């Protein structure tokens, strides 16, 4: 990770204005977005959008040609190019041919992508941004920090300083007054401009139409007052038919700003009359800039389903801490990471891809149904493939991939950790590892790992068998969770089998882009877990469960390895998370919890993989309720705790404030006990409370239920 990048993160997370503004915005957005989508079947809607955009992505050449033909027939001039330099030259040429002195622009990310303003200014043409946010950052000499709200990082005081300089008058920070100043200042620019430049939210091949959406009304002026209109449209904005506009218009404003529709929508189909009676000189530029290459990539084609709503930024736990500028100069947030890797270069995404905590929030809300976290993982994989792993990581994974050595080292660590251990926690670590325990104590490595403890547990005769996949944390830090699981399953008449050859699930390697290592882990585990004939493979760690049920398969697929795919599928079909299995056993009457207990208040933390990949949220709540706990939901119950495997190690500056927020939300419920289904979350949250000297208890659901079994 570059020093500059680390510094940018450091600066951002310590900018109270920024994190305060973004924090409030993300909270309000969640509520408002839900309201805007009331009565709408979001899954159906995004299914349609994904389908029509995916169709378009498969037919970019045909649709571009069709668009060109239709728009040209109406009198527009259509210019198609792959090359950003050609776009810049074309626009400058049109300007020169028509003696253009000033240009007004409405918001266009495509023009940002090719750095058009600087190019035109250099050629002596004055360019004025007219979207209020864009104008603010233009005056400030900055770049947008958010695709929809470009100046979200600035305070009204900063804006009033900028405007005061611009109008030579001391202004206060009254927002309506500042907006009025912008109106008065920009109006003469609109009226004087020779050329208007816009982007395009949608381009319709069937009719040669472009669709422009704004709230301020600036695009209406940009496309009406100057005698020349240039629209720069990325070819991913193409759709096949006029009727396809409707679903995008339904989702885009709701997802972007929680509006039912933007104040203004203009559908322009060919040139229109100017105020002097002449016809508009309308130029539409269809820009490729690697979009066709993206469409040809089986993995990244889906990124072209993006409608640029920026909801992936709005729900991102990391974005709300660091803001847009840490991500780069043009496209920001989750989708921005992907677009930067393509439109700029893969290398440019090296640092920013590591910002993704893989919590899956963005995937849930994306109206284009893009699996953004998965695509970021793919970027990681390709970076590692191209450049290899950093040395330290390589050393770690060579150990992880050697099960015996790995387990021996973990046992050794149990002893080596001793000098730093206080009770059940590692409170301080030496030297460069100190960051790890800055805000959170780590669990001491258990004196007796689960694999040893298991041999001492006596199980009753059972007719059914379940294979237990412990995962590293339960095996080496929290063996008591494994013991609790055995107790519960035995009560339901299920014998628990623990194949010793099981090893790390490969998630740490995979999340670092080391897919070859992850594939090695997958093969070892498949062999071990399928070696016993059992009904279920159960895990009490959602990350491990996801590895077994989803990621072994996708790791093999990404690497093009087919040998172990059938076995991976067989394992996936048998794999179940702990709460789902126990809920099923209770429903079937095979397991009973003590009745009529009043165990007091509890709150529940949803772990990312459990909630958003396995879609399990109600099962643990119902079980805890049945056991006698009274559930009080915390604010943002399904927001990441900041652990995310090795993320907390690589990005402590981001992970820590995410953890702090989670701890506060738990405290605010007033409950003295918080339950969760993931040992990683337990480690993170328990460690956080330990550092706080808080007496709030942090428990895995498996432990709580094991205490409440009917005799």
């Amino acid at each position, binding site marked *: 990770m570059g020093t500059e990048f680390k510094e940018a993160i450091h600066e951002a997370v310590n900018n109270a204005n920024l994190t305060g503004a973004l924090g409030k915005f993300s909270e309000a957005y969640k509520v408002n977005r839900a309201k805007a989508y009331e009565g709408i079947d979001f899954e159906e809607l995004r299914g349609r959008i994904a389908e029509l955009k995916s169709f378009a992505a498969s037919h970019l050449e045909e649709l571009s040609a069709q668009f060109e033909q239709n728009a040209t027939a109406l009198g527009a001039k259509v210019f198609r190019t792959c090359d950003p330099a050609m776009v810049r030259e074309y626009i400058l040429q049109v300007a020169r041919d028509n003696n253009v002195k000033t240009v007004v622009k409405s918001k266009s990310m495509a023009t940002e992508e090719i750095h058009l303003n600087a190019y035109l200014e250099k050629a002596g043409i004055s360019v004025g941004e007219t979207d209020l946010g864009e104008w603010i950052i233009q005056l400030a000499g900055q770049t947008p920090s958010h695709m929809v709200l470009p100046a979200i990082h600035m305070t009204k005081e900063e804006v009033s300083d900028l405007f005061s300089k611009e109008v030579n008058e001391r202004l206060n920070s009254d927002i309506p007054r500042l907006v009025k100043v912008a109106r008065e200042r920009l109006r003469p620019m609109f009226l004087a401009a020779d050329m208007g430049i816009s982007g395009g939210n949608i381009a319709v091949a069937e009719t040669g139409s472009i669709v422009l959406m704004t*709230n301020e009304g600036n695009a209406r002026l940009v496309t009406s007052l100057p005698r020349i209109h240039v629209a720069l449209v990325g070819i991913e904005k193409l759709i096949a038919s006029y009727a396809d506009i409707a679903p995008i218009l339904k989702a885009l404003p709701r997802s972007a700003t929680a509006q039912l529709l933007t*104040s203004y929508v203009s559908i322009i*189909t060919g040139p229109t009359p100017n105020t002097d009676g002449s016809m508009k000189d309308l130029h539409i530029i269809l820009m490729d800039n690697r979009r066709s290459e993206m469409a040809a990539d089986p993995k990244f084609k889906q990124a072209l389903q993006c409608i640029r709503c920026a909801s992936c930024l709005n729900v991102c736990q990391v974005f709300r801490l660091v803001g847009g500028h840490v991500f780069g100069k043009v496209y920001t947030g989750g989708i921005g990471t992907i677009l930067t890797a393509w439109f700029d270069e893969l290398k440019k995404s090296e640092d920013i891809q590591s910002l993704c905590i893989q919590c899956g929030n963005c995937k849930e809300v994306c109206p284009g149904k893009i699996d953004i976290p998965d695509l970021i993982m793919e970027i990681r994989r390709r970076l590692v493939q191209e450049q290899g792993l950093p040395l330290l990581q390589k050393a770690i994974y060579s150990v992880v991939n050697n099960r015996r050595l790995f387990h021996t080292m973990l046992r050794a660590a149990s002893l080596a950790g001793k000098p730093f251990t206080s009770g059940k926690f590692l409170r301080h670590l030496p030297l460069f590892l100190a960051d790890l325990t800055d805000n959170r104590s780590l669990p001491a490595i258990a004196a007796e790992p689960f694999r040893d403890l298991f041999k001492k547990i006596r199980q009753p005769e059972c007719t059914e068998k379940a294979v237990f996949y412990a995962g590293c944390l339960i095996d080496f830090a929290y063996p008591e969770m494994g013991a609790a699981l055995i107790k519960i399953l035995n009560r339901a008449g299920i014998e628990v089998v623990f194949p010793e050859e099981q090893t790390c699930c490969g998630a740490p390697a995979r999340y670092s882009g080391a897919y070859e290592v992850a594939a090695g882990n997958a093969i070892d585990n498949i062999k071990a877990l399928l070696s016993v004939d059992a009904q279920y493979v159960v895990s009490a760690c959602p990350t491990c469960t996801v590895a077994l049920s989803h990621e072994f398969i996708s790791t093999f697929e990404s690497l093009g390895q087919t040998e172990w795919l059938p076995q991976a599928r067989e394992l996936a079909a048998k794999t179940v998370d702990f709460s789902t299995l126990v809920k099923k056993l209770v429903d079937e009457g095979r397991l009973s919890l003590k009745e009529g207990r009043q165990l007091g208040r509890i709150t529940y933390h949803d772990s990312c993989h459990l909630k958003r990949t396995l879609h399990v949220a109600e099962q643990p709540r119902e079980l805890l309720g049945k056991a006698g706990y009274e559930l009080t939901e915390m604010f943002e119950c399904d927001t990441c705790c900041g652990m995310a495997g090795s993320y907390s190690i690589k990005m402590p500056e981001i992970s820590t404030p995410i953890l702090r927020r989670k701890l506060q939300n738990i405290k605010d419920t007033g409950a003295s006990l918080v339950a969760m289904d993931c040992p990683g979350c337990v480690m993170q949250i328990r460690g956080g409370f330990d550092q706080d000297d808080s007496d709030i208890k942090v428990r895995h659901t498996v432990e709580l239920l094991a205490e409440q079994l009917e005799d």
Partner: protein
Amino acid sequence: MYQQFKARADGVSAEVYRFDTKTAVLEFVRQFLLEEGVADRRGFYSLWAKGSFLNGMDRQTLPAIPGLKFEVTRELAADARIGISQMHWALADTGTLVQDSTAIEQRLVSSLSSIHIAIAPTAGILPDMPTLLATVNPKKCAYLAMITGPSRTADIERVLTIGVHGPERLIILFCDELGGAG
């Protein structure tokens, strides 16, 4: 559908009225222009763009207010306080007005003035966007404009502020007597 439209349009700070007759609409406009101080000087003009509402109407019956003009130029529009134009359709589910704005004067009066009075046929209310897109033939409508409430921004500290580049007030007058637009 009118009630649904009104609820949605109210929700985005438009002001919605409904009248039986064109005469009643004219009376409202006359009163409104007087109250808003429309006068024959820069910054106080009111421009009324062409439309079926005005077509065939005896000019004598139109309000005789100094500053109310029926010719629309770029210069006058830039100095107008109030713009009046006629819409063709409305969308009930979003409170949206829709106009074939191909003629530039239609856009001038509705985008440059501080207050936009939009007259719309009650019979032109459609349920939603898909119905509209099935109704309009884009080949015959070069500039299809949709307007949902007044101009707005949240670009400074995400505080909703009305009236950036477009009108800060949108007054919608539905008229039952105006036939469906189409």
